[in-house]
């Protein structure tokens, strides 16, 4: 238990600075959007807090393995515990970031209403399903989306770590190729229609299921990983 606690504390110490700096900048930009909306009421402004958080989380989780594997294995964790710790940390990270977004969104909605700013839209994931869904539901959706992206980042990180630059970029190439192939083959229309035909709860469950499946793949790929990469 102490190893898990220690692992989480190590990651918290390693990432708290990044979290504070990013949150400060993101919050500043979101409130700047509000001020812009008040100054220029003719321009339509959309706040993109969640998008920024998703990008930031993906970048952070891509560096996770490089930054923490050697230190935590030196502290005695085995690979399964390491994955449990990093998975748990990214879950807490997602909940924390979603909580920050929840507060910012609530404040933005409050101020837009208070000052009657109509040019600023605060887009939320819940809008995909029902505009009337509460911010609490949106919090759960945001946290699930952030967690899913974090797991995708971790998978990318593991692929680069295990298979080097050639393996990593090849993997990215295949993913991009699949994405591009999807356009002429018209995969996305039915996909989006399908997603929108679900309800919010199903969407959350699907995102969490994908995240857990990706985490399982990450665990499989790290079972015998060395702190010194195979490219040495």
């Amino acid at each position, binding site marked *: 238990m*102490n*190893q898990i*606690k*220690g692992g989480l*504390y*190590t990651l918290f*110490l*390693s990432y708290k*600075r990044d979290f504070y700096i990013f949150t400060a900048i993101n919050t500043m930009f979101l409130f700047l959007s509000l001020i812009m909306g008040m100054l220029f009421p003719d321009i339509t402004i959309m706040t993109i807090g969640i998008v920024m958080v998703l990008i930031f989380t993906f970048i952070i989780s891509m560096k996770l393995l490089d*930054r*923490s594997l*050697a*230190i935590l*294995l*030196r*502290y*005695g*964790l*085995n*690979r*399964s*515990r390491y994955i449990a710790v990093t998975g748990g940390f990214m879950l807490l990270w997602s909940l924390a970031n979603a909580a920050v977004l929840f507060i910012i969104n609530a404040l933005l909605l409050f101020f837009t209403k208070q000052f009657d700013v109509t040019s600023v839209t605060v887009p939320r994931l819940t809008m995909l399903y029902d505009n009337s869904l509460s911010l609490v539901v949106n919090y759960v959706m945001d946290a699930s989306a952030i967690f899913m992206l974090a797991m995708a980042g971790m998978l990318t990180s593991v692929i680069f770590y295990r298979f080097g630059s050639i393996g990593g970029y090849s993997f990215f190439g295949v993913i991009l190729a699949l994405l591009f192939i999807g356009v002429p083959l018209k995969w996305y229309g039915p996909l989006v229609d399908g997603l929108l035909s679900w309800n919010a709860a199903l969407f959350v469950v699907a995102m969490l299921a994908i995240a857990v499946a990706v985490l399982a793949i990450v665990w499989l790929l790290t*079972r*015998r*990983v*060395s*702190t*010194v990469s*195979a490219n*040495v």
Partner: protein
Amino acid sequence: MNIKVSQLTKQYRNRKVLDEVSFNLQGPAIIGFLGHNGAGKTSFLNMLAGLVAPSSGTIEVEGEPVFNNGELMKQVCFIAETGNFPLHVSIGQVLTLNKLFFPNWNEELAEELLEQFSLRKKDKIKNMSKGMVSALGIITGLASGAPITIFDEPYIGMDASGRQLFYELLVEQHALEPRTFILSTHLIDEASNLFEDVLIMHEGKVLVHQPYEDIQTNIVKAKGRQEELEAYIGSSKVIHRSKFMNEHTAVIMHENVPAAAPASLKLESIKLQELMVLLSKNKRREIG
């Protein structure tokens, strides 16, 4: 603790850094792990600490394989040259982490050692000099109380007085609470007096593994006239020969405690550093 290494091999692409090595290390003891750069020391220590998977063979501690063994690894503290701590944390936070990870962590000793090495708890790793980070590594290793504590070149950037303090503390801690300390170092002459057991590696193979006392008594440098020297050597292994004017010199590795030498032969014990250089040179010649 008993460390058993069986047929251990580590290969990176075409390069074999460890080649089917087998040996036992029996603790408690201070074990000198020596060899030139690229001898395979760090690769072995990384595998002992469970950081790197062997290509084949096993390392067992008390009969349990070390790789991916989280419970066993609580009993191992590995202090490497660099990269032991996250960069953005303070010394105080490192001590808190150590308390969580090492079940036998000695807080009192850690506090005392911080004072001896003049470190302040609020200092951050990223702002510290190399020597200060090394000192923190040494404090972590000594206060960890881990039954197997590995120091792999632990004093990068430390001055002579800091290193001397480390040697003194190592002996003191070993006397107070005997455990297995494995020290890998290039400063062999400085540290040789600490070792109870010595293991010398060269290009992935173990060249010598003997108690330090046996090395001091069984490996000697003899100087004198050729006939007397040859008679004294007998069937023992000669590591090195040289000649200056009429004086012949041989470094002889006896199987057991050697018989008394004739008075005309001058016998000297050999320093570990010199032994390592000669053994490596011999090995290279054999391969060449």
